[in-house]
């Protein structure tokens, strides 16, 4: 329980800033695709390397990156209907993942999909903390290119110039998202780990107008959701993933209703 809490707090610091960028770039669906996309990789990792965190984690990261590249490639090649391509991709990935996992004996599908506090051992905690430690400095480095590219994709800046550099930063960013999704799966479950990334980010939009403010608000909400969610999970005996995500979802509903920016109760008639 303590390990799970420490791990979730680490992720609460690292994941929500990524979520804020995903929301701002209108790529919320992409996070769903990635979390489903890592599932087959985790299954293959478990089949090849056993139930160790590293084997499943590596498989998950590789699969997530493949899915991210595929999604980007589809978007470029077809030039239209990006979200429908993504929907197709994640349905296939989810089905493949569940099929692969069910084919193996000794793997608890529920734990893998929805997480379990007890599954968080020292290795899993190390993975979560490591992912968070890596994410924050990398995000700090690519912050300005990301802002520039989100704001104005046609602004050639820096020595790389041109359109090619935009893809590079975008790729770095998606790799971080994959990393955070995968590192959280032991505690939160593959289907829920994005919740800690997205829900606080969506809720934060209602609290603060500036980018830095949204990131801070999202981190604060994620930390609160982790603590409250884990306590509920521990005492009521429901999986940690849904408990944390439901708590974060509760914060989101409150923000949506009562938040100072575009809160439904504050702005009447529009």
């Amino acid at each position, binding site marked *: 329980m303590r390990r799970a809490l420490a791990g979730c707090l680490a992720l609460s610091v690292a994941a929500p800033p990524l979520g804020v960028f995903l929301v701002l770039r209108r790529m919320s669906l992409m996070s769903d695709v990635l979390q489903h996309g890592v599932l087959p990789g985790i299954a293959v990792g478990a089949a090849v390397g056993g139930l160790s965190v590293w084997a499943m984690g590596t498989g998950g990261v590789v699969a997530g990156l493949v899915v991210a590249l595929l999604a980007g490639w589809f978007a470029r090649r077809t030039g239209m209907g990006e979200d429908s391509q993504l929907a197709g991709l994640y349905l296939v990935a989810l089905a493949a993942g569940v099929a692969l996992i069910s084919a193996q004996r000794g793997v608890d599908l529920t734990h893998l999909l929805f997480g379990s506090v007890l599954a968080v051992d020292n290795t899993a905690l190390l993975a979560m903390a490591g992912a968070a430690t890596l994410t924050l400095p990398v995000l700090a480095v690519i912050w300005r290119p990301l802002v*520039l590219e*989100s704001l104005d994709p046609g602004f050639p800046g820096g020595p790389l110039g041109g359109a090619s550099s935009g893809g590079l930063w975008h790729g770095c960013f998606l790799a971080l998202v994959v990393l955070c999704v995968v590192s959280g799966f032991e505690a939160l479950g593959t289907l829920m780990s994005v919740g800690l990334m997205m829900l606080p980010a969506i809720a934060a939009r209602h609290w603060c107008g500036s980018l830095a403010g949204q990131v801070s608000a999202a981190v604060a909400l994620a930390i609160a959701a982790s603590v409250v969610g884990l306590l509920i999970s521990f005492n009521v005996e429901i999986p940690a993933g849904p408990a944390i995500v439901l708590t974060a979802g509760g914060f989101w509903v409150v923000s949506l209703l009562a938040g100072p920016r575009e809160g439904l109760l504050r702005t009447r008639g529009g």
Partner: protein
Amino acid sequence: MLYRNHGYQAATPSTLPRRRSRIAAHPGRHGPRDGVARRDLGFVVTQASFPVASIRLEHVTLRRGGRDVVRDLTGTFAPGSLTAVAGPNGAGKSTLLQALCGLLPVASGRIERGGLDGRAIALLPQEGRLDRSFPITCRDVVALGWTARLGLFRRIGREQYAVADRALTSVGLDGLGQRPIGALSAGQFQRVLFARTIVRDAPVILLDEPFSAIDAATEADLMAIVRMWHRQGRTVVAVLHDLDLIRAEFPNALILGTDAHGWGATDDVLTAPAIRHARLSASVPPLAAARSVADAPLAAPVEEAA
């Protein structure tokens, strides 16, 4: 040598023509309307002389979405020239600007930039290309103009922000620096983009429909800035729809059609038949277009066409 200091290097500066300030060349031409230009606009540049290469296009064809939008375009943007690009919707005006600054590869032919790289060519994008809902202040957007010169990771410090603030003042947005861009009117946002371009301080400036969706007062203010850039010797290319404005302010013009282009001095290029032809040829195959040109009424609504 401004661009050497910032790492810009024209191919062989010593052999290139040095553009002198154009103030002497057009005395009084824009005098009474230069309200904005009189507000200390030259602060970013240290000299009004740009040893810059020309941009030559040789049989350039540009493709977008599997369709040739610009076909076989040949010509030169001379250093320090001020050129308006006109043409019907879909004639490839924005596509051409993107190719000029290297965002879009050419399908065939070549663009010779004489050593100017992406950093030396500033593109002011069409209004809808930017995400206006992104939570960022005017001041930060303008300061981000520095990244083209400083690189993506060099610190944008107090000095750079001071320049950004002055640029905001010079476009008439004094005191609005902290306002998020989502809270601006279309005209104010266009002023912010002009301020960012001032901060970028590039020798070549490409403006994609800078005056669409803004009122007359804003257009007059921003046009003064375009004139200032021209006087400083920068190469300026602007996509425009207002033919009267092009005739009054732009010495050179490029009319894009799908099968024929007109490029040269504005008075030579912007003739009534050329306008009608460009308008018709974008959507009609060449043969039919030729026939319609003959049939077309003389008083074609040219403003709509461009």
